[in-house]
């Protein structure tokens, strides 16, 4: 899965959890909590959904580092190479 496909997967799952977000115009560097009003339940649900979809397990202790789409891309990108 290349970065573009990974990004698409993240955006699709994000749209399912927070359909109020205009995913076409989402910035990779914006903090999801601040700019798109995701709360901690949303964040938990997003990571669970990504885990199910991609089969990449994200240990809970790494959850808090996922502030932005960019963080997710980087983390999941690295994990999928292993």
């Amino acid at each position, binding site marked *: 899965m290349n970065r573009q496909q990974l990004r698409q997967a993240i955006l699709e799952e994000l*749209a*399912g959890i*927070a*359909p*109020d977000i205009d995913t076409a115009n989402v910035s990779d560097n914006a903090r999801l*909590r*601040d700019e798109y*009003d*995701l*709360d*901690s*339940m*949303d964040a*938990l*649900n997003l990571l669970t959904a990504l885990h199910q979809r991609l089969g990449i397990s994200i240990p*809970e*202790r790494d*959850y*808090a580092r996922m502030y932005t789409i960019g963080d997710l891309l980087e983390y999941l990108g690295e994990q999928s190479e292993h």
Partner: protein
Amino acid sequence: MSKPPPNLANYDATRADFSWDRAREELAGMAGGCMNIAHEALDRHLQTANADRTAIRFLPRGREPAIDISYRELAARAGRFANVLASLGVGRGERVYVLAHRIPDLYAAALGTLRHGCVFTPLFSAFGPEPIRSRVEIGEPSVLITTERLYRRKVADWIADTPSIRHVLLIGEVDEAPDGTADAGALMDQADAEYDTQPMDPGELALLHFTSGTTGLPKGALHVHEAVVAHHITGKYALDLQPGDIYWCTADPGWVTGTSYGIIAPLTNGVTLIVDEEEFDAERWYRILQEQRVTVWYTAPTAIRMLMKYGPELARQHDLSALRFLASVGEPLNPEAVHWGRETIGLPFHDNWWQTETGGIMIANFASMPIRPGSMGRPVPGIEAAVARGTDDGIELIEDPEETGELVLKTGWPSMFRGYLNEEERYRKCFAGDWYLTGDLARRDADGYFWFIGRTDDVIKSSGHLIGPFEVESILMEHPAVAEAGVIGVPDEVAGETIKAFVALRPGHEPGEELRRELMALARKRLGASVAPRRIEFHDNLPRTRSGKIMRRLLRARELGLPEGDLSTLEGGKQ
């Protein structure tokens, strides 16, 4: 280092000896029998060794260094804010709303508002525009304090329609104050730090806290300056706040806990309050407990359950040995969480119980008493609690232990709410004779510990926040496809309950994923993520009473596979 004995060493003796008059003597008071919450929280420390103690240790986002604010500095900043209010012609008794995330000037604004004799109302910064707007319309504040970002995102669109607001003041970083707003920080920098705190009658209004009921709009619970007597003494007894403590209350100041125990009680008790700008983050939280040497920690079941998900290793990697007392509030703490604390942190969590209306902790597991895991504990000194059943002309107290009934409290404690704003009748209905009816079902065991059973109404407790189903249903109903909506709480292992909506559509509309997302988006945009439903289910029609009200109780019973109970009022009989 040995740990000091608890403030309340002997429950029965302290309780027997307790009087509210004596509790009042622990505070300074003002000339002529007057009081002011901020006088007790700030001014009275300035003549003592506490003046240069750190009142607030602010932990900015990321890993920026902590900022210490002493009692003297906080009093001065609050004084500047009070002078700003005075210079704007804002008078005693006018309402000042504060909508901000946890930043230092939120605390200065709250305390400055009180010093100036205005009524302080906190609003949760994660609310969407709708809950903010409805609370503004109900409470008609004269002043709104917020941040530039929150103003642009959640307020700017509708503020022109709310004539009560004369001033919008922005705290935190201001790039460019939008039209109709002013940079409060800049005004405060120019204002005088000296301010004579307004002496208030103990029964004069100080705080307005919004809470939710089953029906109708949010209720504004009114509290008075003498509430500080209860804030102080419960901070001392139920949270065991002692001189030199480093205290961390994780509740957001947008809710009542974040005010009573996130601003007032720690300051009246002269301790150092940790304020973290960041949201929940397990690793960061353990790091704060370790690095700040937190001694007393007041948090909530949802946060504890999140920490439990991270497993014990993360906790064990940190030195949590400074902790002396852990407490929890927001919803009943499950016994596993109490045990987890004991095994992982080395201390159990002490659950306690109270409501927006009670203003302060009413029932608690105290440091000096054995905890009954799953129980809310015993009434704090000065509080008489009982279990009651309804009768034709009021209530009857249930004397036998282990019987379930409504939890009731004998009126007369200082932080009892004094009204719902503009809703006399709704307030009156909360009382039967000398007893306040809490709306919570409970039982009392033979040793006097109380156990929470459930609610008598349909309000939802999600992540410790009380959510009124009506507020959510009203927004869903605004969508042209929606004929009716019923909103309930469904159990969730982390949040306690999450919000689920049942929706019936108007003719010509088909259920489907696209519509579901549209409704979710509408609700999230208007209400904010924490109030919007996480799940939406379409039904052909919803169960109603003959008088046309959606039977949420039945929706919930069906959702959870519980007995459906009395269906005699169901429209069309049993379906």
